């Protein structure tokens, strides 16, 4: 049962081959058995899952249908789930039972999904290896000594290990796409504003987007369909009609213009990944695509710009965690300042504290122009680069990451070593463009992903290309040994 994709589950439930409750119980047992090796869950919500599964079965019995009715999934632990711990993998929110549901949680629940639990992540979404969680690091099911990527490492590991078919993640600098690449999954970051941020605990407000993580593009389409759409509670949510993503999967790629930026093939890229990327290009050419060179001249400035903007916004977003109305409060605060300093000093982990400090510094008097403003200007240059490139091509293709999954602890000595892993993913967040990572092969047993970027609101195009690619390749069907 655990091998089934969402699409297969939907058919199985429709054909009454099994019930949602049966499936749910089976996956819960599997999670209990296997997750200790991975640590991909922070909370397993058994009671909720059974209740939702039973409800879905009842709805189906009453004649309702729908591709997500009774579908099991998990939510990254920064989506507010009412009455259930929503920790952001932080001691600061270890005791936080969210008083409301995030919009995407509510939408998916009303479509009939079954929440098996809340997945582990880098604390407050800050990281690319899922090593900074208060609840311990997550292991990559492809090699338990290696990182699964981050910050949606828990969602990635759980889906890759077939503990469930799909999960939600969030992507601020690559946190869906990069772990998807490192764990052989398909993950999509939608256009900024496509999916509501209400109830999604904010890291960097102008960069964050929620998206699906699954084994196939087809599954991502199903899950994205249940997540996307305008929300009046989110001022940054765009009122753009949601197309039928599943319908766009089957279009032919004949004449598709693929741009491969020359700046992508730089010194930092693992040559095995470079090879696999070029191989995927050949596969797509066989499907009728044409390839062109494009240029993204400001690519190299993306990481510095990101590491100003994201920490700056985060430093402000995380000010609300002060021990006053919710969350962690230190013992016996002497005075107000002590309450703030110790609650925050004890509640936040070191990476979060570092980013808050960098962010506060970048916004402080005298530095705002040189840092924050400069970064926002570079952001425009990057957006312009893409707008230019998309005049000549329909999608941009390249590696998702410079390296496959590294060993746990290997990049801890140097604070910026991990940051450089975001090289290929970060630009999509800065420009707000949709991006997808799909499995494209292995480098010594570790998964490698290829990334596709498209113009605004062309998630359908991305899913289409990925789906067609997945009809002629089988990387995405491989599963890790022991799971």
């Amino acid at each position, binding site marked *: 049962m655990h091998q089934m994709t969402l699409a297969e589950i939907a058919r199985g439930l429709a054909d009454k081959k099994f019930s949602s409750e049966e499936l749910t119980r089976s996956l819960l047992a599997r999670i209990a058995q296997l997750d200790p090796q991975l640590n991909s869950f922070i909370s397993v919500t058994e009671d909720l899952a059974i209740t939702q599964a039973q409800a879905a079965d009842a709805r189906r019995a009453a004649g309702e249908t729908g591709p997500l009715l009774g579908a099991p999934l998990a939510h990254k632990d920064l989506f507010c789930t009412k009455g259930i711990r929503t920790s952001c993998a932080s001691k600061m929110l270890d005791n936080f039972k969210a008083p409301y549901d995030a919009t995407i949680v509510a939408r998916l629940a009303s479509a009939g999904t079954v929440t098996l639990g809340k997945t582990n992540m880098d604390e407050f979404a800050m990281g690319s290896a899922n090593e900074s969680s208060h609840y311990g690091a997550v292991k990559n099911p492809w090699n338990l000594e290696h990182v699964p990527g981050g910050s949606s490492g828990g969602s990635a590991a759980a889906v890759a290990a077939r503990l469930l078919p799909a999960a939600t993640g969030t992507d601020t600098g690559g946190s869906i796409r990069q772990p998807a690449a490192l764990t052989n999954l398909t993950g999509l970051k939608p256009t900024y504003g496509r999916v509501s941020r209400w109830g999604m605990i904010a890291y960097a407000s102008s960069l964050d987007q929620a998206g699906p993580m699954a084994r196939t593009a087809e599954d991502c389409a199903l899950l994205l369909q249940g997540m996307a759409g305008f929300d009046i509670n989110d001022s940054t949510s765009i009122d753009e009609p949601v197309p039928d993503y599943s319908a766009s999967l089957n279009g032919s790629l004949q004449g598709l213009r693929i741009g491969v930026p020359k700046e992508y093939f730089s010194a930092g890229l693992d040559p095995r990944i470079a090879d696999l990327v070029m191989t995927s290009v050949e596969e797509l050419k066989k499907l009728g695509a044409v390839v062109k060179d494009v240029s993204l001249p400001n690519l190299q400035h993306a990481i510095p710009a990101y590491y100003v903007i994201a920490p700056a*916004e985060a430093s402000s977003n995380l000010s609300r965690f002060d021990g006053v109305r919710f969350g962690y409060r230190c013992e016996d605060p002497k005075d107000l300042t002590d309450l703030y300093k110790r609650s925050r000093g004890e509640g936040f982990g070191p990476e979060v504290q570092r980013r808050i400090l960098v962010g506060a510094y970048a*916004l402080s008097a005298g530095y705002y122009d040189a840092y924050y403003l400069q970064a926002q200007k570079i952001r425009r240059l990057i957006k312009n680069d893409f707008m230019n490139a998309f005049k000549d091509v329909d999608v941009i293709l390249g590696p998702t990451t410079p390296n496959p999954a590294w060993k746990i602890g290997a990049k801890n000595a140097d604070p910026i070593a991990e940051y450089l892993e975001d090289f290929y993913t970060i630009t999509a967040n800065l420009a707000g463009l949709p991006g997808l990572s799909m499995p494209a092969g292995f480098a010594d047993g570790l998964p490698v992903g290829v990334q596709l970027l498209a113009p605004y609101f062309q998630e359908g195009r991305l899913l289409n290309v990925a789906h067609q690619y997945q009809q002629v390749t089988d990387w995405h069907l491989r599963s890790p040994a022991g799971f």
Partner: protein
Amino acid sequence: MQWEVVIGLEIHTQLTTQSKIFSGSATTFGSEPNTQASLVDLGMPGTLPVLNKEAVQMAVKFGLAIDAEIGQHNVFARKNYFYPDLPKGYQISQMELPIVGKGHLDITLEDGTIKRIGVTRAHLEEDAGKSLHEDFSGMTGIDLNRAGTPLLEIVSEPDMRSAKEAVAYVKAMHALVRYLGICDGNMAEGSLRCDCNVSIRPVGQVEFGTRCEIKNVNSFRFIEKAINSEIQRQIDLIEDGGKVIQQTRLYDPNTNETRAMRSKEEANDYRYFPDPDLLPVIIEDSFLEQTRATLPELPPQKRERFQSQFGLSLYDASVLASSREQANYFEQVVSIAGDAKLAANWVMVELGSLLNKQGVEIDHSPVSAEQLGGMLKRITDNTISGKIAKMVFEAMANGEGSADEIIEQRGLKQVTDSGAIESILDDMLAANAEQVEQYRAADDAKRGKMFGFFVGQAMKASKGKANPGQVNELLKRKLEG
């Protein structure tokens, strides 16, 4: 040393929207603590702000009323600092691109002259919650009902040169926002709060001196006193050889002194940056024009019109135009009575003193505009004299009905028949023959005094009902004769 005082004011006005600026919570004053604090107001993780259209409209209305540039592309920014009544750890405000730019407000000084006070800008922001320091076992209690109420912060140019000018400005601003219906101006409830920036410099010096900010002064009286006490403090300080340090201070009405605020002792770096959860606010020309159409006639125009249409003096026009309610009352009286100057006088003096005595505003006046207008008509048509009118007015204030009813009931009709008056005079003069002779023998100066005696006697004899003008004329003739 001759000192010049420089004052600039920041007035925070709570806008009278139904819901808060970024959330759908109610803005009602005085509710149980934290019963009007939604997820957004509490700064719960994952919550986001959505902007209230009415707050925008009210701000634009204000901008148009002070002839200001409207920021048709305005941006919300975060002002970051830590304080328990600020749930998100930042206040959503506006920094570089406010919704209202440079404008001005004219104030009338005590000597009747008009001074134009510049307004630098006005911007929208959210109010913070309240701290209650009454004992909660040595803790402070935080109520976030007020957090998120829309504020329009109005910043003046440092154009005022005395506490009195400052008060005149605040009063004019207070009247304007009430006129526009955007703020109820209730200073006791905190709907309108004033921060006063005060500095002094030697007369003739161009650079400003170091200023101190007196925060949250909540009455016109206190504003005047706070500023004056601060001026004196700064003068004393400098003349004693000290220097004024830039500080935030609080006014204590009990001691009539300002003192430095402890919590603001360290300079704050607010790290302003555009709020990424909100998009730029674009005000289309059509929105501007729609809003312009909802503007009522404002005090300056009304003042002009009262002068040109009704022939009132600048002073009278200013006073009557100073509040929408008073202006409407006045105009209603004029429409009934016809005589604008008479109406102006009665509204400002007699009615004014009555309202003062009873401690009520004109919208709760015991004498309605209809009643007063009706009575004034009876003066202009000579039914009653001005003196009798005062009696009628008092009776109306006591609820005895309309002027006509009272005049009828009490038989107060003026005697205007010359024959009747002559006969009263003849009788009176006959009864005072000696005084008549003395009058005829006296010089002009003495005659003036004695004439008054005869008038008095005549009014007594007629029980006040004889028309004074006629009495005067006929009496003069008879005494000459």
